[in-house]
């Protein structure tokens, strides 16, 4: 008996999706594993932390700190009628924070059609315990710790906007009723005062049109001090330039875009995105496609349901030094799988479970992922425990969460017979 093979670097090349035999470094297939350093391991544990408040997928959300509490806010879709929910770190369950006046939200697009992308809410932190949200159908919503409510009519804000973002002391509304390539902003430090959105000699409200855009504005992601605005095939920077114009636009790159509202993921000053041309990385100055042609063909000519690609949701998992995109595969109307790129060792892998939305752990210690039923999971709880606190989001450092026959993981937690605290 002699040694025939001795493989030490098992992370080499990652998962070679789409490659032909001779080009495959080592692993030709796999699922729910990640490559890190020189090893391979199962994906990190996920602990369900919030039972679904309603049966339906999440369509957008953010992490914020409101009234001193770390707060997860998300939109859940039940039919075409979305509801907004909050989970504070000191609360055991989700709280409905949908508007109390103006009736139920309406007319969200459940499934992508030839003319409409699936609805995703866009949220922005406005500071001062205030969060702003919008769905592109109903009026812009403002949350100040109790419930979201319509922005005051006297503010003269756009009738609707598909995206909201904040730069400097201004709230920006993008893709509005005034044009799908329009950017409008409120007067300085005033989002809902009388005339706050009407450009006038005595305020700093304004608007501009991204005329070079060959499509509607699809996505907007912070890039340093500017806002990177993506269409299907262009990337713009919307930047604060000061009075008298306040904001300007700059075409950064062409042949780069986003397939969905959350298709582009920021990781520091680098953006990773899924466009119809492939998976790219850009810093706003240069860009490169990080998928090879074979992976591109694998994704777009066989694996991905292109008719529902606007449901693609990207999440930055900083703890794994990776970006993951949950998407619908062929035959599925829900995001039911994922492709992950590890920017630390430049490897790809894939997951066989879906999540309808996720946040990157901007305020909490860990990312949150929400499944297609609306249950909220927290990533990596079992592996890394931050500190003692009053919240179920925290665990003692020596606390090992063991559910059923093993540690929770892969988007599930076993059968939960016993939890061991040591």
């Amino acid at each position: 008996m002699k040694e025939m093979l001795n493989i030490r670097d098992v992370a080499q090349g990652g998962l070679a999706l789409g490659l032909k035999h001779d080009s495959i470094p080592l692993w030709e297939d796999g699922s729910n594993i990640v490559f890190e350093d020189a090893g391979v391991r199962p994906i990190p544990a996920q602990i369900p932390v919030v039972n679904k408040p309603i049966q339906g997928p999440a369509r957008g959300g953010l992490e914020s700190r409101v009234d001193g509490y770390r707060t997860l806010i998300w939109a859940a879709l039940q039919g075409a009628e979305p509801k907004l929910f909050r989970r504070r770190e000191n609360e055991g369950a989700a709280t409905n924070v949908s508007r109390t006046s103006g009736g139920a939200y309406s007319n969200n697009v459940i499934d992508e059609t030839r003319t409409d992308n699936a609805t995703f809410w866009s949220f922005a932190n406005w500071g001062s315990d205030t969060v702003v949200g919008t769905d592109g159908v109903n009026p812009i919503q403002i949350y100040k710790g109790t419930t979201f409510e319509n922005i005051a009519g006297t503010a003269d804000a756009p009738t609707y906007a598909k995206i909201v973002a904040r730069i400097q002391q201004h709230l920006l509304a993008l893709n509005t009723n005034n044009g799908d390539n329009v950017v409008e902003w409120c007067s300085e430090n005033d989002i809902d005062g009388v005339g706050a959105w009407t450009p006038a000699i005595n305020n700093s409200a304004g608007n501009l049109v991204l005329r070079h855009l060959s499509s509607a504005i699809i996505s907007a992601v912070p890039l340093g001090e500017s806002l990177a605005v993506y269409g299907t095939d262009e990337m713009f920077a919307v930047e604060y330039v000061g009075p008298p114009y306040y904001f300007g636009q700059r075409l950064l790159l062409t042949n780069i875009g986003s397939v969905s509202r959350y298709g582009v993921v920021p990781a520091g000053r680098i953006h990773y995105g899924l466009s119809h041309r492939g998976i790219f990385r850009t810093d706003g100055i240069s860009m490169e496609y990080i998928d090879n042609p074979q992976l591109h063909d694998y994704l777009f000519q066989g694996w991905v349901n292109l008719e529902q690609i606007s449901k693609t949701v990207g999440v930055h998992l900083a703890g794994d030094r990776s970006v993951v995109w949950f998407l619908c595969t062929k035959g599925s109307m829900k995001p039911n799988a994922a492709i992950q790129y590890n920017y630390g060792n430049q490897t790809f892998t894939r997951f066989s479970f879906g999540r309808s939305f996720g946040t990157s752990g901007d305020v909490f210690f860990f990312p949150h992922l929400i499944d297609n039923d609306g249950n909220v999971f927290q990533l990596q709880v079992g592996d890394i425990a931050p500190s003692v606190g009053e919240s179920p989001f925290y665990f003692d450092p020596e606390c090992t969460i063991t559910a059923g026959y093993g540690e929770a993981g892969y988007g599930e937690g076993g059968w939960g017979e016993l939890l061991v605290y040591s």
Partner: protein
Amino acid sequence: MVKAAGENSLSTVDGIAQVQILDSGGVVRQYLAASTDTVSCFLQTKDLHAGDPIIRKIVDLVELDITDQSFHVDLHVSIYGRDDLTTPRKLLADLTPNGNNPFRMHTTGYGYVSLRIEDRSIRRRWKLTGFRILGNMAGKRY
């Protein structure tokens, strides 16, 4: 000390088991939940020829270097072989774990061998950092 919700038992709400933790400081951590959906975890190598695809390899032993494991890891290893990349792979051995011992077998000789590693347990933590395949070269096919 840990208690499930209620009386050390689980209550199930729409497929989610609600549990709570009572930590050493007496703080109850509620609404942790364990869902019941599971997904598989596996890795499959390409066809490995160890330098010469026309020399048959009889696999006698596979060693996995596993670190960072929690409890007992229930990994299964399957060995496949074939002489020609255009023909289907043949399953040569399907091995269940035997403690920390290497996976032992004695396969038919093939020009290519490949390895499939699957975690069939309910989610354990482990990390594969390498593997070795030992056996005998059985001469050329022709």
